[in-house]
């Protein structure tokens, strides 16, 4: 199993580095351009959440680990910010077509994070902080909503 890591300070100016890292690892792991685009979006939203919600502008570090396991790409975000579980946010109403749902509002980024991955797992780290894992299968398109 190949693992790649990136460690950055909590600074929105570093989000471009995060996106470049994700693009590179997805290509290295054999993911398509569509999968790369989806994971770039999801990881950007998750990282931005940590920076703005978790650390709230205070100094901090975020470690991003990417690995390919069988036919899945797993990207793990590790931080030391206050506990924040994006998987616990209310699920968007998907009973109507996306075009008729209202944009913005609570959790647009979290909505994107969820719809562009196959699985999202969150754990509070025993020694403080969050571990968020985003999983995307290779070889099929993201679940449609």
């Amino acid at each position: 199993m190949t693992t790649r890591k990136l460690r950055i300070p909590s600074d929105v100016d570093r989000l471009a580095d995060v996106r470049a890292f994700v693009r590179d690892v997805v290509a290295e792991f054999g993911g398509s351009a569509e999968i790369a685009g989806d994971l770039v979006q999801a990881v950007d939203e998750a990282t931005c959440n940590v920076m703005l919600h978790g650390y709230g502008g205070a100094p901090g570090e975020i470690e991003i680990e990417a690995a390919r396991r069988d036919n899945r790409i797993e990207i793990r975000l590790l931080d030391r910010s206050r506990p924040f579980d994006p998987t616990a946010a209310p699920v968007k109403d998907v009973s109507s077509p996306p075009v008729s749902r209202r944009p913005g509002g609570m959790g647009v980024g979290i909505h994107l994070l969820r719809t562009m991955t196959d699985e999202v797992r969150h754990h509070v780290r025993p020694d403080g902080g969050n571990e968020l894992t985003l999983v995307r299968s290779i070889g099929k398109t993201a679940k449609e909503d």
Partner: protein
Amino acid sequence: MAMTLGVEHLGGSPPVTVVALDGELDASNFERVIEVVRDAYAHGARGLVLDLASLSFMASSGLFALHSALRIMAGETPPDPEMGWGALHQMSHDHDAPVANVRLAGAQDAIARVLERTGMTSLFGIDASRADAVAALQGA
């Protein structure tokens, strides 16, 4: 990758401003879009084209900027960008129909996908090109 903004005031009737976004629109730069739209409206623009042809990425903060542009061009006060993420989450939803004077032009597939997945396409006029968008605003 940084984002550059190109602003062109076309005049005409109604006066139209085209803002071309080049690069990646994210939490580090979305406020610049709001600023240029605010300036355009203050200087008399009553039609706005956001040219997305060279935009390769848009985060949810970019969606917030687009929604703020709608509010500004409707003569309203957008949520305070100083509120940052909180403002995005508290964004009100008072535009259920497309706002006639703001159009999005030339969005690449990845950007169009984000707009569709978040329902934003229902709020804007959508055009294949900047020229189409200007024509739609000025009835040419």
